[in-house]
């Protein structure tokens, strides 16, 4: 386990969490990307014999654990697909409202205003 890798994971998670709390969809998207990268590094960090040579046919000596690499590839593909879909949604929101601001739930606001109206 290397200190640089662990620091990078920490920074990526912190930045990702901060961006995720924003109301603009583009920032949320970038935040999710950061989190996905952070977790990919975590998976890499979980492999045995970190830093050894890659697994290639016929190679001598210790090789690095290939399983986390396979997991990371899968995770990257999934994150890619979902990011593309979210981008499409962002475009749709922008086309409808000229903004990428994520609104509150309409129905929630209706019920909240109805109950505060009854009290006053």
């Amino acid at each position, binding site marked *: 386990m290397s200190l640089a890798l662990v620091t990078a994971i920490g920074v990526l998670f912190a930045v990702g969490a901060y961006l995720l709390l924003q109301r603009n969809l583009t920032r949320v998207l970038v935040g*999710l990307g950061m989190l996905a990268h952070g*977790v990919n590094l*975590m*998976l890499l960090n*979980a492999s045995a014999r970190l830093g050894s040579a890659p697994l290639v046919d016929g190679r001598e000596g210790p090789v690095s654990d290939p399983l986390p690499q396979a*997991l990371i590839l899968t995770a990257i593909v999934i994150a890619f697909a979902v990011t593309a879909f*979210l981008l499409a949604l962002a475009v749709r929101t922008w086309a409808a409202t000229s903004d990428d601001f*994520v*609104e509150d739930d309409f129905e929630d606001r209706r019920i909240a205003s109805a109950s505060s109206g009854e009290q006053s």
Partner: protein
Amino acid sequence: MSGQWLPLLVAVPLLGAAISAVAHRRLFVQRAIAVTSVTAVFVISLLALAEANAGTPLSARIGGWPEGVGISLFVDGMSGLMLSVATLVGLAVLLYSMSQLGRDVLDWWFHPKYLALTAGVALSLSTTDLFNLFVGFELTLIASYTLLTVRSGTRQVRSTISYVVVNLVASVLFLVAIAFAYAASGTLEMGQIAAVLRTESPGLLPVLSALTIVVFGIKSALFPLFMWLPDSYPTAPSPVTALFAGLLTKVGVYAIYRTQTTMFDADQPLLLAVASATMFFGVLGALAQRDVKRILSFHIVSQIGYMIMGLGLLTLAGLTAGLAYMVNHIIVKTGLFLVAGEIEAEVGGSDLDAGSGLVRKRPWLAAAFALFGLSLAGVPPLGGFVVKFALIQESLTTDQFGVAAVAILVSLLTLFSMMKIWTGVFWGDQVGDGPGARRGMRLVTGSMALLSLAVALFARPLFDVASNAAQTLLAAATGGG
């Protein structure tokens, strides 16, 4: 039947999705493929359930790789039971959707998405490998994201965004748990992870247990992580909501059952507290709503609490009742959303103010709603009563009086909000002017009502199967993995 057939559970719907995507302009072909694939999965699930019930759970390793390296599938009693019910209900929703979706340009892609969702659910329910579970979840979720936006108005897009973001955060946490588990144990097989961790680093077990409860708690809408559900589900077309209500959150509950028994020593006070809070706050949310689909969505949350209560009791009878509850709930909840779809078709909206007087216009629909609604609340002699009674009885036997009291109180509140729908939509004389429900929709809703009656009539065999499944789970829990 042997284990070699298990990969078909996932392969058939995936292949079907590919073919129906190619044939996206031929609706008839798409429908034929979808019905055939889902029926095939249903038959395989039933056969696997029969085998597992006879004491020989099936397993398969894809490509013949050794354990721990290759993808392995495993169907025991709980998987088989869930798979069978899920695909049966999925088939019903598919037939129902034929009368509603697939009629305009936007819906060309409905069938491929639907089949991809089925494949994801089947993979999630038939694997013991943490990463495969992740892939199964993601496949299900990506299909569900696109199904939510079948009709992509501003509302759907807005609610889908929050749904996607919340679920992505859960997925990231899931990967974190996987990374921890793999780093500590060097394997991804749930049973092996538990075995290695118990001897080598038992301190990590509570951490992983908490992480997985949060992850699956988000996916199955447990208190306090349920806010995304009533926000997103009601905006989709009714068949889609019915499918989600029946299947998606229940896959999350299944994952909690599986991980808490196979991998961890379940934290009983925590589970019971979460179960009580989920039941109570879910039903409180439902009471405040004025829209049929939103009321029903909050009830999904409330009902999840009962299932977790069954797990929290941690006894054979408790787990059995929890599993039977899930079976009954999948049927009843899907049925209720099918009724909601018909209400929408009849009065032109799902708001309680949209129209009324349906009891005169559609008496049989009113009867079906009464059947589902009373079963959800747990009124004898319906299926909901049988499973709820078993659950509460076991909680009293094990001296968990607090959770039993909450369960009874929530039943009353459930009955109250069902009455709200009844008085709002079925009574009255101001009949709405919707296009009316097609005959296909009526037939499917009627069949679901009969199916929910069957749960009560055949409660004994259902409880026998559930008891066998629970026994396997408990054996995994006490056997140290």
